C-alpha cells in the first residue's frame, strides 16, 4: 500500500500499488486539470505509476481568489 496525502485538507489515504496517477485522481473524483500530483516532492505526469515506497501528495489547482 502507498500513502497519499490529499491537500488542502491534509487527508491521508492508503492506495494499493502499483497505481497510475490518473487512476488515483479518478478515484478521488478529481479532474486531472485540477490537481498536481507530487511523488517524493516532484510533480509527475498523470501517466506516472505509484509504487510502494513513494511519498505521494495531491495538490489542488485553484485560484487564491
Amino acid at each position, binding site marked *: 500500500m502507498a500513502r497519499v496525502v490529499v491537500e*488542502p485538507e491534509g487527508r491521508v489515504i492508503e492506495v494499493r500499488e502499483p497505481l497510475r496517477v490518473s487512476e488515483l485522481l479518478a478515484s478521488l473524483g478529481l*479532474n486531472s*486539470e*485540477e490537481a498536481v500530483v507530487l*511523488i517524493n516532492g*516532484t510533480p509527475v*505526469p498523470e501517466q506516472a505509476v505509484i509504487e510502494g515506497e513513494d511519498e505521494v501528495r495531491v495538490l489542488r489547482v485553484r485560484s*487564491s481568489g
Partner: protein
Amino acid sequence: MARIPPCSVCGKPAVAYVRPLRKFLCREHFIEYFNRRVARILERARVGPGDRILVALSGGKDSAALLNALADLRRSFGYELIAVHIDLGIRGFSEESRRAVEAESARLGVPLLVVDLREAIGVSIPELARMSRRPTCSVCGLVKRYVLNAAAVESRARYIAMGHNGDDIIAYAIKSFLGQDLESLRKLGPYSDSMEGLAVGRLRPLYMITEKESLVYALLKRAHINRATCPHLDPNQLEVVIKHLMNEFETRRPGVKIQLLGNLARRYRDYPEPREAVAACPSCGLISSGGECSFCRLTRKALGEPMGRRVRLYIRGKLEELGLGGASG
C-alpha cells in the same frame, strides 16, 4: 520507486505531459517551454531594452510563476522589473500573502513596492466593502485595478504584467459572452496599449499557460507562495464554475482550451470598442469614463472624500524610498 515516463527531449524523468507539444517534459525542458510561451507574448507586445515592467504580485502561484519567468527572461529582453503588492488587510490571509511576496521578490532580486491599504487610505478591503455596502470581491477588484494603474503611472512603467493564466482568460471571456458584454471581450488580449498619463497597458504573459502548468512551474522553481484561498472567495462564483466546466470539456475534447485562447488572441480586436469616452478623473487625474473615476466615487461615498490623489502621493513616497521615483504632477 515510481515509474515515471521519460522526457521526450532528453530522457530524464518527466514532470508533466504538455498537450500542445504532445510531449513529456523534464524539469529543465518544462521550464524552457514555459519561458518560451511567456517570451512569445513579450515579443508580440514589443517589450524591449529600457522598458520598465511593473509585476503585480498577489502571493499566489500565478504571480509567483510570472515573476520567476520574467526574472529568467530579463537579461535577454533587457527590461527592468519592479514588483508591486497590495496588502488588502484581509485578516488570516493577507499576512501570509505579503510574507510570500517579500520572500520571493528578495530571492529574485526584484525591488518590491508594497501598497498597504490601511496606510494608504486608512481602511482594509473588508472595512471598505462594509462602509460602501458593496460586495467584498467587487470592491477588491475595483481597488486593485486602481492601485495597480496608479503604481504603474507613478513608476513610469510601460506595462503592468498580470498573472492571469489561460484558464482565467477563458473564464472572463465566457462570462463576458454570457452577459453579451462584447466590449469586455476586446480587453482580453495578451496585452493592451497605454493611454498617456491616464492608464498603463496590461501585459498577460501567462495567456497561453494553463492554471495547472502555472502551479507546476511555481513548484519547480520552489517559489514562495500562499496556497490558501481568500476567505471571501465564493466557490459558486461564475468564473470558478466556468473554469470547472471548461476542465470537464477539456477532458472530453483535449486541446479545446488552448484552441479557444489562440483564437481569442487573434480575434479580440474584432470586438467593439468601448462606447464611453475616456477622460481624466477631476479628483485624481487618472483614467475615468466621464466624471470622477470609480475609485474616487467609491471612497468619497464610503470615507467621505475621494482617495485617488492620496493613493498616488502614497505610492510616490514609497517609490522614492525605494530609489525608484518616477512621474511628477
